[in-house]
């Protein structure tokens, strides 16, 4: 099993999700994150003092997938999350030794 983690722009979630759903993905997990990188943040002012907030809000997607699907899912995420500008984020794949669904203890591909 593979775990695909993607850092994306918050406003791309809807696109990514509908692309993944079209593909047939049954579920995923999202959480809030912030990142810094090539994309620049915004300068903020509070009573004139300048705060250069370079942590940009992002979302982190975690998608468990069979090895077989992983590549395809990767492709879909790359496609649907992209604007072509710096700040689109990164996607990485790691290997999960085991995946289990809590409710019925289904394992592996069945757990998804």
């Amino acid at each position, binding site marked *: 099993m593979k775990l695909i983690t993607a850092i994306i722009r918050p*406003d791309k979630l*809807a696109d990514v999700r509908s692309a993944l759903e079209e593909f047939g993905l049954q579920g995923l997990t999202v959480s809030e994150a*912030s990142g*810094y990188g090539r994309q*620049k*943040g*915004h*300068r*903020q*002012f*509070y*009573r*004139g*003092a*300048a*705060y*250069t*907030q*370079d*942590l940009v809000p992002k979302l982190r997607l975690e998608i468990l997938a069979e090895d077989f699907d992983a590549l395809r899912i990767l492709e879909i995420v790359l496609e649907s999350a992209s604007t072509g500008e710096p700040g689109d984020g990164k996607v990485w794949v790691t290997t999960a030794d085991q995946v289990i669904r809590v409710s019925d203890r289904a394992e592996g591909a069945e757990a998804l």
Partner: protein
Amino acid sequence: MEISAVDVWVMVSAALVLLMTPGVAFFYSGMTRAKSVLNMLMMCFSALAVVAVVWTLWGYSMSGATGIAQLFGNPFEAFGLSSLLGSGDLISAGFSATFAIITVALIAGGIADRAKFSGWLVFVPIWVTLVYCPLAFMVWGGGLLSAEGEFGQVFGEAIDYAGGTVVHINAGVAALVLALIIGRRRGFGVDPAQRPHNIPLVMLGATLLWFGWFGFNGGAATDAAEAGVIWISTMVAPAAAFIAWIGVEWIRDGKPTSLGGASGIVAGLVAITPACANVSPLGALLIGLLAGVASALAVGLKYRLGYDDSLDVVGVHLVSGLVGTLALGFFALPVDGEGGGLFYGGGADQLIAQSAAAAFAILFTGILTTIIGILIHRTVGMRVAEEDEITGVDLTEHAETGYEFGGLGTGGSFRPHPSSPAAHRRTPEAERVNS
């Protein structure tokens, strides 16, 4: 000239009405997304500040001084209010200012999340000068729509005790026009993120509005019996509208919502505004019910018709403003046994007068606001760039964010205030971030 009871009542009422504009600000800003909460606050507070200054300079004069062609008062007659020094009239000048202020602030709800702040700041003084002041003069200052005015003589004098036409229909139409001019939000009618970010804040806004509305409706009362009628109307109409709105939701959607309740309160207050002194408590209750139902149904129209009046200034203020204005044609109590609405045997006269005044206000505001809005939109611009809308107008228009609850505000770097010498050491971080 010692302070009289009426003086006290007007001063208190004026402070209450002034409080309503922050009330509008909270009511609206709780309904935006978190990333545009400050911009909405700023649109309302800047309306407050700019109109307060305009009113002091020429607005009061234009809405109440000697008329020019029954259209507006002479702006120079009481310019700067200096001519009122030493008289008690400054108190009522303050009271009237607060009505102009809130009317302008109400318009902001139509263009939430995407308005260009500089464009708004140009719009405010022009609109209040060219639209609000004349309309207030025509209805309340002895102008065209008053009993002596040419329009009033043809159609009869409409009752607009506290601002059904001048405030609510006026603001509702202006918001609609601006919303049409600047266009829909990105994702309008599709994006589930366009939901209120802070409903307790909306409730706070509704609270301040209701509280302040006792001054809004009551402040002009000089007679205790009239004041009593107004107080009760201002309590029971929004209460009834609250019930009606959540009732509609319960039947239609299966759940009564708190946003619906808060909206109902405002709709009821709007509807009773023109009618507060001229209906019985039961009449007020019924007007509240009508307004609650009408506005609860009307807020959906924007999806059907495709205009993005983001926070429903049309659905709430225009629709309930019309409900209240027209309801007087039916519910107005006779005065000294004469006149009154259809239900009191007064015939259709009052209804005709009310309808004519409403139609006049809609046309007048609609046309003028279209001209003003288009001119500003074409020159200064009234809408931000699409990428700014995505990032959020708090950051792009005001360089701030509304909230920082977590630990992540610790990112980035700090640069002391420009007036500080330390500020001139340019740090690498400061360089890396585009302003």
